[in-house]
């Protein structure tokens, strides 16, 4: 089995937000929920970089550790998923997440949160693959169809890479050695406790 990871090559990202749009459309994500987003660091200054960010599918995921009802699970492909049937919308996973991935629909008064929603690596949820129930709760299950996440597939500059850790790390390494520079795999140290040696 593969160890699925996400890598955003910050030296290639042009902040076109196609990944955000692709994600929203593929999974019919409602207004106010952003599974994926693009953040620009040092906007307008020399050395500005944009990074597309969503759930990194961490090794030893903090969200899973702090969840009071233990609704998270890790698939054989190392994708971190959760059950919306079990989630109580407490919001603790957002506090623990280093990447701001968990999202909550506003369902009531004050700050009451609905069932958490986040990037599934286009791998759906605990329901049977590609069923209506799975689609309504978690969106498309492209992994079950043998396809990779749509955000990365549609990335116009191929900045965003999603797939097996060894494969995407190799692609990134080759890029860096060819062009002679690379600002590193953003978030990898925090998410996977390892980086790509370039």
């Amino acid at each position: 089995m593969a160890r699925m990871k996400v890598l955003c090559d910050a030296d290639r990202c042009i902040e076109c937000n196609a990944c955000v749009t692709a994600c929203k459309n593929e999974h019919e994500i409602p207004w106010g929920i952003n599974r994926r987003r693009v953040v620009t660091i040092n906007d307008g200054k020399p050395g500005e970089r944009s990074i597309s960010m969503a759930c990194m599918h961490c090794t030893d995921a903090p969200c899973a550790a702090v969840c009071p009802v233990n609704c998270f699970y890790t698939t054989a492909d190392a994708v971190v998923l959760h059950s919306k049937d079990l989630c109580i919308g407490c919001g603790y996973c957002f506090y623990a997440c280093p990447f701001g991935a968990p999202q909550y629909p506003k369902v009531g008064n004050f700050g009451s949160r609905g069932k958490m929603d986040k990037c599934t690596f286009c791998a759906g949820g605990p329901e049977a693959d590609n069923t209506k129930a799975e689609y309504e709760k978690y969106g498309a299950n492209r992994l079950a169809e043998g396809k990779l996440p749509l955000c990365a597939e549609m990335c116009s500059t191929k900045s965003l890479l999603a797939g097996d850790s060894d494969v995407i790390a190799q692609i990134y390494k080759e890029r860096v050695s060819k062009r002679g520079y690379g600002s590193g795999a953003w978030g990898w140290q925090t998410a996977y406790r390892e980086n790509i040696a370039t």
Partner: protein
Amino acid sequence: MAKLAVQIRFIAVALALALMLALAAPASAQRVDPNASAVQEQQLLKGLSTIQGRGSIPDVKSYTLEHPAGRDWRQFHTVWLKWIGGLAIIGMLAMLTIFYMWRGRMRIEGGRSGRKLVRFTGVERFVHWLTASTFVILGITGLNITFGRALILPWMGPEAFSAWSEYAKYVHNYLSFAFTIGVVLMFLMWIGQNFPTAADIQWLKAGGGMLKGHHAAPPAYKFNAGQKILYWLIIVGGVAMIISGFMLLFPFYYGLNVGDMELAEIFHGVVGVMFVALIIAHIYLGTLGMEGAFEAMSEGTVDLNWAKEHHSLWYQQEMQREARGKGEPMVTPTPAE
């Protein structure tokens, strides 16, 4: 002449071109590194706990690219809070058990006189039970968030535990308002009788008479020093729980960021488990630990001998008041048995 002028112009242009090339050459020989001035993740993380940027969606929280401090909060919530809470609550239960085995139930030494003295009015009892009942429910539903997964989930099963926890979350959120009203009313209602007096020092020196044997309870007014300490701890702890609780109930309001939310949760958790431990001790002393104490809050009256033994100064005040013929009837006739 014209030919010479053309020649001079040609040489001048050639020289100028040569100069330009000479100046330009070192620049073109340099390798272009667009990454030289680029922001570096590790540098950003070294200086700050978060990496902040600009986004293009209305959700301001999403402009935080990375927040590795979430790992520290995780460590607190999954490890430290469990230890602090476990030690505080189990420690308190153990201490009370030892105390009970050593000292037993504190009896009314003079026996029941059969005559009763009004200790708490209906309003006082209402405020007490409003605060107390909401506190117990808030305590149980709150502890569920930290300890439920390890203690209840395994035997309840994931579906039932989630259903109960979601219900508990809503109960915890909405009862907070009733609890807040209770704490505010309690603060206003009893503050006059909870300022320290000279008798409190004596009471504390004597350990409240709890550590020594018979007839050792030092003089006290309506509230003894121990009860006054309890009162102020409840007010201070209650306000701490209310403020941090409302921060959690209104997440990310008024510019609160994820770091503030984590701090609020840490504060709410630590003060919360201490509060639970404190109230366990209060419940013990008000019920099992002392004969004749619980009826003060259930019926509103206490036995005359209990008042004499535990709150002698208050007893004298009440007796004087009655002698002057003022106020409500203090002593009710013994019911025929």
